[in-house]
């Protein structure tokens, strides 16, 4: 375990990519039409609720709640106007801003902490670096409810309840293991010669990080950041327990739609669309690296 894990030379990585491309072309040749049709049917089945959500959000309340559904009703932005507080007055902007604050700042903190940690786990590894890696991984497997109560009591007695800063620190801890694992896999792909050259030229840790590592792995940093952003933006359990009126995030705001309030389907769909929009954008931007983040770097 300690010996066989030297950074992979880029040449073999290239070879692997080439052979997997060949594998793909072989696979598509053997794929037949029935499987293709089945794949399309399943794909459409899965995307349809999302399509229906967006369509309904663009209908008027009366057209949104007909039975059977009226797909071809005229489109309107009324649902979005209602969501942004046209008649109820409850503006979604404070929760959206809270969510943005918590997600963006925690993501920056995660990246700042994860890059040096990944450096100490791959470029100049500490002696027991695999143990450290699996320690990070095991904290990710600790469910949020495991520490929820002490975190709640701690916040209650120190007056940190309903404080967005407390929440964003917890989100940093939540996302740090994923970031460390992903960052390590990106750093391990950098050829060792570059670091040797930097050391010969007398570059210290900070200088190596700034001038070599960050420019080379910037696509990797972007993908990691997008994934951490998604997880922080989606989080409900911690936010719902630790925040309420002032620091409530967008998912907490969405819980006000749990009980139905007369004709409000277009408004709910508009709310779901608006709150999901940042995740959809981030998700498609990070599509290729999404699985790497979700599997904690186990799958490349």
């Amino acid at each position, binding site marked *: 375990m300690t010996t066989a894990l030297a950074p992979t030379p880029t040449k073999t990585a290239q070879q*692997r990519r080439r052979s997997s491309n060949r594998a793909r072309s072989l696979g598509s040749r053997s794929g037949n039409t029935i499987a293709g049709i089945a*794949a399309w049917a399943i794909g459409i089945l899965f995307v349809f609720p999302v399509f229906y959500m967006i369509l309904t959000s663009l209908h008027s309340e009366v057209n949104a*709640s007909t039975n059977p559904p009226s797909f071809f009703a005229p489109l309107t932005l009324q649902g979005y106007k209602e969501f942004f507080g046209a008649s109820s007055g409850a503006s979604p902007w404070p929760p959206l801003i809270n969510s943005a604050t918590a997600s963006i700042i925690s993501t920056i903190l995660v990246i700042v902490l994860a890059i040096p*940690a990944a450096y*100490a786990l791959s470029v100049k590894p500490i002696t027991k670096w695999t143990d450290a890696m699996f320690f990070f991984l095991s904290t990710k497997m600790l469910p949020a409810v*495991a520490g*929820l109560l002490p975190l709640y009591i701690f916040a209650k007695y120190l007056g940190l309840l309903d404080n967005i800063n407390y929440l964003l620190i917890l989100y940093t801890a939540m996302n740090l293991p994923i970031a460390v694992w992903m960052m390590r896999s990106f750093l391990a792909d950098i050829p060792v010669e570059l670091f040797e050259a930097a050391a010969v030229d007398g570059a210290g840790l900070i200088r190596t990080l700034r001038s070599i590592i960050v420019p080379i792995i910037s696509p990797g940093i972007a993908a990691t950041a997008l994934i951490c952003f998604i997880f922080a933006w989606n989080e409900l359990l911690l936010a719902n327990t630790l925040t309420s009126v002032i620091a409530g995030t967008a998912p907490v705001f969405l819980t006000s739609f749990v009980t139905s309030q007369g004709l409000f389907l277009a408004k709910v769909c508009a709310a779901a669309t608006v709150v999901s929009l940042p995740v959809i954008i981030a998700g498609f931007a990070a599509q290729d690296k999404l*699985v790497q983040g979700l599997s904690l770097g186990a799958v490349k």
Partner: protein
Amino acid sequence: MATTTAAPLDARAEAKAAKKAAKKKEPKPSFSQRWLDRQGWSRRIPLLPALVFIIILTQIPFLATLVISFMNWNANYPQDIAFGTLNNYVQVFTDAALRSSVFFTIVLTVTVVIVSLLLNRSFFGRGIVRTFMITPFLIVPVAAALLWKHAIYNPVYGLLNGILTWLGGPQPDWITDFPRLAIEVQLIWYWTPFMTLILLAGLQSRPGDVLEAANVDGANAWQTFTNITMPHMRRYLELGGLLGSIYVVQTFDSVFVMTAGSLGTANLPYTVYETLYSAQDYGLASAQGVVVVIFSIAIATFLLRTVSTLFEES
């Protein structure tokens, strides 16, 4: 299962023993030597901020949970706080509602993970279909649960009953009549994309030269599938199943939004939340939290083994 895994396990144990023997031969530096080793510290320092941060925010709260789980502590009765009781655990394992929540947590996890894996038999999806499959995963979980609750399951104006009206079928109240199934279907819809991504990554990492050789040797599609693809995919199936289990065991959003834990759908995380938030019974909530952790550790042990084999390969 036991017979197929026994051989590689033995091999791994042997390799470990050999490595241990090799390690013993080298003189091991003493603790003080390692502590004072300056070079070692220059390597360790970049790691420390992240390590300290994560220990403070995950390990210490969990230790506190463990301690509180042996305490009699209800915020509504502050004069009765006492340490040294097993009552919370007795309550966890005797309360019928809690037993049902343990049971539902298992059912939920197993059905969601297995159906999500089964739905991935359409390995041939590419391009647009792949994008279609990913989309559900990019909806914020609370929003997804709201969408299903109001726009799809609603008995009056939901999409399902709308389609049934066209077909002339009955008009069931989905969430009230089939509460558990309703949550399961929504979660299957949400988690299948994740499994797809993992399995797709596995398929794309099949060794191309081996597939080519099989093709040259005249292997048909079925032979290639059973002899090359399946053995290669087994670990990815394991990984998808185990990671999926870790995430699904922690489900909170769907239960909170769709039923608020009523109708026998409270799973463990939701029960912990309710005990903590509504009943304010801190001791009991901690004991429930510990039970969730034990579940997760059981899954995680297998997961760590799978991850470490994939990790050693790369």
